[in-house]
């Protein structure tokens, strides 16, 4: 879960700043992210993990507003690619998010992603957030964020941009096919000190697609269930084919926290 508000998060050198994410909360919540060339997968399309990251940002912010004064934790996230987008600095991805349900125990968010200026649907995502009792350590939402229209805000700082491929920027290590590792660094943490949900999605995506050693596959659907915070590290994703079809199961464990399973994911590979 990510707080999309002012304060000391994200830190100066952080993935959300390099992704140059901008957002506003109005009638609908909206987030913009340039389709930087370093977001590309092997075939030049924007990675599903990058889309999951922008979804997590806007969904987390919107859910926190819907759950106020309570707090939230991401329970699950699904993202389905509809049409691939070439990673090109001239293209901007725009995601609109809306609350489908704001209940006592859960908040459900739907988020559709399109591209500009070409237009057209890029992906559709849904998220469930658990509503928690507020703790003293939770960030405080400011008045304009609750019930008011916020100005368009940016997470970018002067000069922040991706200077190398997203996987390298995140520090994803590649021990072998179907495995990816990530160290807990300030670059990838969320406001709770755990690995950002979008970074975990990117790690799961990477682990899944490296099962195809020919490199011809991309992850086109991803369904993640977040089970526990990833606050130790290294964080290791292991993907395996489940059965004879194209179903891939990914388990992400926290090697620095008694090998605790932090996330499980189901992925679908395709030549999109």
């Amino acid at each position: 879960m990510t707080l999309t508000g002012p304060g000391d998060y994200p830190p100066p050198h952080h993935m959300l700043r390099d992704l140059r994410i901008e957002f506003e909360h109005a009638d609908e919540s909206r987030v913009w992210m340039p389709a930087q060339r370093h977001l590309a997968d092997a075939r030049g399309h924007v990675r599903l993990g990058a889309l999951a990251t922008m979804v997590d940002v806007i969904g987390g912010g919107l859910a926190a507003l819907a759950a106020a004064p309570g707090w939230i934790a991401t329970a699950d996230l699904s993202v389905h690619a509809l049409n691939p987008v070439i990673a090109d600095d001239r293209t901007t991805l725009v995601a609109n998010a809306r609350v489908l349900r704001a209940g006592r125990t859960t908040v459900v968010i739907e988020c559709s992603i399109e591209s500009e200026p070409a237009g057209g649907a890029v992906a559709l995502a849904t998220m469930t957030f658990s509503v928690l009792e507020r703790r003293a350590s939770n960030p405080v939402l400011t008045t304009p964020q609750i019930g008011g229209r916020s100005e368009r805000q940016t997470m970018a700082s002067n000069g922040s941009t991706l200077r190398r491929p997203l996987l390298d920027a995140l520090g994803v290590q590649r021990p072998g096919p179907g495995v990816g590792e990530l160290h807990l660094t300030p670059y990838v943490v969320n406001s709770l000190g755990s690995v950002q949900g979008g970074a975990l999605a990117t790690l799961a995506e990477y682990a899944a697609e490296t099962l195809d050693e020919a490199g011809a596959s991309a992850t086109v659907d991803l369904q993640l269930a977040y089970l526990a915070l990833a606050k130790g590290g290294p964080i290791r994703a292991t993907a395996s084919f489940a059965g004879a079809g194209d179903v891939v199961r990914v388990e992400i464990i926290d090697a620095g926290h008694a090998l605790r399973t932090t996330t499980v994911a189901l992925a679908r590979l395709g030549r999109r």
Partner: protein
Amino acid sequence: MTYVNDPSTGRSVARYVGMNLIEVGDWQRGEVVLEATVSPRTHLAGSHGGLVTGALLTMCDNVAGFCAGLAALPHGWVVSTSLMIRRARWQSVGDVRFRSGVLRAGRSSVVTDAVARDEKGLLAIATLTSAVLVPKGGVPVWERPARLVHDAQPPDGGQRDHDRDNKRSDAGADHFYRWLGIRPAPTGVGVELDVFDGLRNPWGIVHGGVTASLIDSAARAAVPGASGVVDATVHFLAPSRAGPVRAVGVPLGERRSEVVVKVVVSDLGADRVVAIAIVGVQREVPAVSASDRFP
């Protein structure tokens, strides 16, 4: 109406699919693991000869939901909030065995999984997120290890057949969907069903598997030449009590032989949206082999 505490009511759907749930985990040490076996009979077969997807969704919801409920004890019982499922194969061979375990048991939510296998291996894999609630009558008490045993109900034992005049193959080919009463919506767009007591779960609301089956039908109805649903992410937003319950699918995008469909489910009697789903629909039944993993 809530009858979570009465194990004899709200089980018609489980009886129809003939699902026997047996707790096999070391419950005395806090471990909750369930197994279930289903002998697919003709009333659960789809037009492709395998276990109909709606029945598979229902079974996964059943076993993972019961597992979540046991994991929520003694603080509460559960209602399904989201179900994510992927189907690995179309045809099932022999008995289908389910195994469900707890991925996370928190104060407000429980995450469980369900893996379905037959003689040939994996059939489907599902993850269920459930919210922990306290029923009006109090938290149910289960004798442990828990057992819920249902003999398969005769296919036409006192059931209704809403769509016997239905000419649409997507809603009329399978007995399971006829038992649910799924029919084309009178508007010509989507499918719907009436709510009767046999479709309610122990909370007195429409069973999550029934809603998932309606979603399966609506997604296929939205895609010309559809053969079946390969994956679904279902969010249960509100309970269905009144009916009729209508599901409408809208194709969003296409990739090779698969179409991504968004399905919205509404309880017309309560005038509200009760579920939303993102569904992958296959246009034709694939002959998947180990060397052809990526359609």
